[in-house]
């Protein structure tokens, strides 16, 4: 038993750490760290720097640009990326549709899409959830009817994150209305410029435009944009969701935020001294750090177990990571909110007010929105209650 990294792994960590901190522009990393929204171009800039280095999609198959890394190296890479406040390579591209096309797509789809996905030449969004299909995803109603060489798609998708930037959407659609739930679903790739698509912004609880509703009104999709076989889409979706769940603990992100909270607490005045002198606050920070340490080791245990498994199937223990990881992300944002104190009320500071806020306070207006926004993490990616169901069934046999 040995919980330390090998010298090679330590050297690897230094390499990626240095790269992230020297090659990814500081203004982008500052936005991530401060919880401010990124512009479309920020994501593109960051991902193309990674892609040029060969690091945008290290977990993909080698022939499509992946790296021959061990699961432990991948873990180190992602943790260091988050701790350096580098934007994660666009999830929808790199962790969702890319692996699906690589695994199930036609050779034409692979040739056409994969390089553009990795380089963020095409921005993808996810068309899974519907107003009536959330946790019960398989009850989705958006339908695709075959008409010659095309499908005609009608319906509605929702919670489409960053759909306002998207060039393409990957959708689960019902192609066999008579089959039982999961059996009649297909996986379609749809050009967002197609006539009949309408994108309506949804302003979320943090006051920002992050998600959208997407309406499909007789949208024509060429049959060559079907992934795999018709009515097998649920299998591909399960594959995708399992990919989504690994690494969802975002431990590096929480550690980065805790480190920032500790820095800010030293410059945030309170009484005769600063917030860091407040032993009650400090104790709550320590409490979250201990939970994070435990989760970090739990994650390493899952990674080490994965490295030994040959089937590549996701470990149901990753549901534990999702539950605790999301809870701890939320806990860090609560600490941030408490650190801001009454200044948490300050809405988006701009112009003169932003200039007036001295360096000590220039972060406070983003504290509450970060807290608001982070409530989503126990909902998305399979809500924490669904994760409980998964563990109860798969691990406890209840």
């Amino acid at each position: 038993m040995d919980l330390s990294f090998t010298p090679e792994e330590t050297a690897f960590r230094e390499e990626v750490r240095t790269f992230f901190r020297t090659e990814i522009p500081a203004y982008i990393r500052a936005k991530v760290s401060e919880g401010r929204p990124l512009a479309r171009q920020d994501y593109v800039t960051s991902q193309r720097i990674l892609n040029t280095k060969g690091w945008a999609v290290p977990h993909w198959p080698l022939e499509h640009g992946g790296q021959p890394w061990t699961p432990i190296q991948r873990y180190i890479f992602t943790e260091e990326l988050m701790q350096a406040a580098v934007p994660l390579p666009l999830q929808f591209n790199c962790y969702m549709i890319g692996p699906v096309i690589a695994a199930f797509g036609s050779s034409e789809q692979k040739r056409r899409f994969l390089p553009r996905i990795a380089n963020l030449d095409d921005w993808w969004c996810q068309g899974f959830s519907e107003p009536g299909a959330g946790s019960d995803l398989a009850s989705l109603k958006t339908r695709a009817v075959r008409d010659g060489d095309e499908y005609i798609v009608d319906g509605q998708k929702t919670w489409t994150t960053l759909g306002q930037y998207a060039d393409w959407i990957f959708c689960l659609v019902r192609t066999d209305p008579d089959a039982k739930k999961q059996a009649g679903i297909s996986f379609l790739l749809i050009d967002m410029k197609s006539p009949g698509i309408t994108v309506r912004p949804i302003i979320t609880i943090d006051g920002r435009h992050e998600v959208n509703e997407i309406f499909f009104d007789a949208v024509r999709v060429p049959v060559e944009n079907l992934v795999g076989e018709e009515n097998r889409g649920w299998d591909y979706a399960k594959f995708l969701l399992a990919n989504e769940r690994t690494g969802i603990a975002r431990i590096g992100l929480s550690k980065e935020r805790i480190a920032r909270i500790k820095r800010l607490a030293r410059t945030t005045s309170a009484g005769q001294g600063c917030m860091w002198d407040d032993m009650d606050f400090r104790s709550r920070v320590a409490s979250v750090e201990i939970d994070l340490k435990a989760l970090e080791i739990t994650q390493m245990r899952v990674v080490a177990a994965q490295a030994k498994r040959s089937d590549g199937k996701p470990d149901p223990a990753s549901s534990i990571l999702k539950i605790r990881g999301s809870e701890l992300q939320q806990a860090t944002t609560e600490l941030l909110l408490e650190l801001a104190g009454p200044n948490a009320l300050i809405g988006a500071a701009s112009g003169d007010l932003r200039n007036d806020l001295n360096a000590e306070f220039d972060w406070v207006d983003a504290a509450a929105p970060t807290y608001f926004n982070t409530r989503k993490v126990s909902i998305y990616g399979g809500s924490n209650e669904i994760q409980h169901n998964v563990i109860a069934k798969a691990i406890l046999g209840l």
Partner: protein
Amino acid sequence: MDFDLSSEQSLLKETVDRWVADTYGTLAQIEASRKAPLGFSEAAWLQLADLGLLALPFSEADGGFGGGPTETLVAMEALGRGLVPEPYFASVVLGGAAIRLAASSDQRQRLIPSLIDGSLRLAFAHGERQARYDLADVATTARGIDGGFVLEGQKSVVLNADTAGMLVVSARTAGGQRDRAGISLFLVPTDASGVSLHSYGTHDGGRAADITLSGVHVPQDALLGTEDEAFAVISRIIAGAIAALSAEAVGIMEALNALTVDYLKTRKQFGVPIGTFQVLQHRAVDMLVALEQARSMELYAAMMAEAEDPVARDLAMSAAKVQINRSARFVAQQAVQLHGGIGMTMEYLGAHYFRRLTMIEMMFGDTPHHLRVVADAGGLA
């Protein structure tokens, strides 16, 4: 990074798991030993000697097994699962560490063979009533006299003192009551003149004693380690103790969770197994999450228990104990709740696990204590 046991460690695990299952697989077996005159089974103690478990922490040069924190982890998980009444923790983990870390080669030659063969047991007489969890708070004194020392003072909650042949006593040879410098360790025969024990049962079915030392004369060679400099040794003993208790707690939580999940599958109400109710399923999942988080910190504690840097080591042990305590409390409470009435009875094994987990929580630092240590240090990173 490797979380697997070596083949030797796996063999050790098989051995101790099998012994525990055979010897303490039922509550009746556990209670029979508790009711024996010593509060445990002398025969079982000698079996532990035969299995080599009493030799675990001692170096091979001293005739021991040469085990480290991982070997102790393996043993303690199993002993926890069996609620094994024999004083393994008191004598081998605490007392053994004092010998291993501080004894001169003469003292090792004199003591270790009888510790390994089971004929001598140790008790670690360090805690005092006013000290709570402050390891440096030692009011007991040892005054140097010609050819030795005279000890005066009181020690409290000394685990398994009444069945130990020898006490490892901490006493102040210099400095003020809470100074880290000026503490020394002494080997004191339990039957020495001036040693009086007030023994009692503990709430986990074990035994402990409060001890009064009144004009206890010991010779010069009773000094264990360097005079005035025992604090570093005591800290190392306690680090190992926290790692061992963490493993014991994980062994218990694992068994308690299994017991609970089994109950959910078999207990029927409203015509169905109660494990079909989602609210109970989710509670059982939360118990599993608590167990896995505890297991991670158990491994962390084992890895850090003998770290070179005492500051990093003690910070890690505090973090580990916080997690173990929290998980232990949650798992124990939920296990009783999910069992309903039967969980409240001494007829049920689960209730005994509950009591032991609670006592583990209160030993060597409760949650507020260790959280304060981590906060004082400025956190973990």
